[in-house]
């Protein structure tokens, strides 16, 4: 099917049907590699809407890796849609829309990447763009921590230890993605950090108003205002 340039605010947003190149298990997660087609991988932290076979709505996924000719997504099979994506076989094709939203600001001098659980998804692509800065990763179990293999050289902790325990006194420019309690702890420790949030999204391009988060006392669409928010724009 021909691709469509949809003029969805950001330039270069396209929707194409892309075939799966491979699907690898990484601990409890699946790394799904799709052919890239004419889609732009975008800026680290941006996301794509992936058609979930058999479901009404697509699912938002931040880009994990962008090898030549491919787009790779790290998926946690927590529901019917994500399970359908993890079950894709090689050559199965799905519609993909993107890149969407605002990614990380890469003009940082002392980057430190922090990820928790499935929140590590955008960090491998981000790390590559920043030349492999130091990274701190936290996971629930040893099995989840197998995903740390996607970010060689990262410092890894497993619960009950928390990733924020590894934050140095002066953490520099923190770029983070993970569960809300982790982001909240980082807000307190690293003012000005760039934090990638997560919310269910029905459309991913500002149409449905379903993904709102509270920013300065207002409901803002995370797909338009984020998913990367600077600490000053974070939750009160």
């Amino acid at each position, binding site marked *: 099917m021909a691709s*469509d*340039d*949809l*003029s*969805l*605010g950001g330039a270069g947003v396209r*929707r194409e049907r892309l075939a799966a190149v491979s699907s690898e298990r990484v601990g409890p997660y699946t790394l799904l590699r799709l052919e890239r087609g004419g889609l732009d991988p975008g800026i680290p932290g941006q996301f794509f*809407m992936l*058609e979930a076979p058999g*479901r*009404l*709505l*697509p699912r938002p996924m931040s880009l994990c890796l962008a090898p030549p000719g491919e787009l790779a997504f790290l998926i946690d099979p927590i529901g019917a*849609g994500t399970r359908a994506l993890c079950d894709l076989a090689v050559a199965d094709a799905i*519609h993909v*829309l993107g890149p969407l939203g605002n990614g990380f600001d890469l003009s940082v001098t002392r980057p430190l990447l922090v990820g928790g659980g499935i929140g590590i998804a955008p960090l491998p692509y981000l790390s590559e763009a920043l030349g492999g800065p130091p990274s701190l990763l936290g996971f629930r179990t040893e099995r989840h921590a197998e995903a740390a293999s996607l970010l060689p050289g990262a410092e890894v902790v497993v619960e009950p230890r928390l990733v924020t325990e590894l934050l140095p006194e002066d953490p520099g420019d923190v770029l983070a993605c993970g569960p809300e309690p982790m982001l909240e702890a980082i807000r307190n420790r690293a003012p000005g950090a760039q934090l990638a949030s997560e*919310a*269910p999204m*029905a*459309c991913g*391009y*500002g*149409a*449905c*108003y*379903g*993904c*709102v*988060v509270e920013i300065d006392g*207002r*409901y803002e669409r995370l797909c*338009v205002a984020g998913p990367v928010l600077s600490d000053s724009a974070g939750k009160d």
Partner: protein
Amino acid sequence: MEPTSILNASGCLDALVAPGVARSLDAFVTKTVTPLPREGNPPPRFIETEAGMLNSIGLQNPGIEGFVRDHLPPLAELGVPIWVSVGGFSASDYASVCALLDDCEAVATVELNLSCPNVEEAPETAAELAHAARGATSKPLYAKLSPATWDIAETARAVADAGVDGLSLVNTIRGLALDPQTLRPGLGRDVGGYSGPALRPIALACVWACAAAVDLTIVGMGGVASGRDALDFTAAGASAVALGTILFSDPAAPARVRAELGVESIDRGFGSPAAIRGIARKEATSAVASAE
């Protein structure tokens, strides 16, 4: 209106964020505007079900003054007719918003949201709200009705008598989904508006009933996702269809549905979709006549 125009359902597209999608429509319908700004309902605001989705956005909007000041000028530059969806909590709310829009050249049509399932309803009937709006504007006026009524044709006749020019059929219907773990409502506001494929036969029955009851232009909506769906609504009596939930998964749906509808019409030996309008009932009538 052109034969079987394709619009968006109110609240299912932001033309300022997705101008390319808006330009692919025959008219853009805004998210519902109320007299005062509204933050909307707390998240979670939507939930996918087996055959559709529930939403409880809660009419988040900048209020009529903010809309006219900040949103309408860039919308006017899209080059697409602008329909403004109007909501409120009393007849005077509808009248005041319509009066302000009456002065706006950029507004082609006013659609009265008489049936949002996610906010408190006005105490007046749909006909009373339509009457108040009619007194406040000379713009073309469409009444968007709820399918959750025993006899929608009766409501259609009442709003027709109140002076509306057309009907938008239908709004979402109230539904509930429970979280599988907690068995608590999955939406922040508990219940929400149900849309998607499961709404389609319900909406089609409403179009069918209203097309026979009143001589008004009808925009059909409710689970329209393909040219075949649009064909059904046209055959049931709609002059236009609006796309809602399908836009969330396929922003290119307007052009696709338009093309598919053209092919569907030609495949059935009709030169244009306009020739199909209302044919469902005509065929039924002739079948009965020949049986007699």
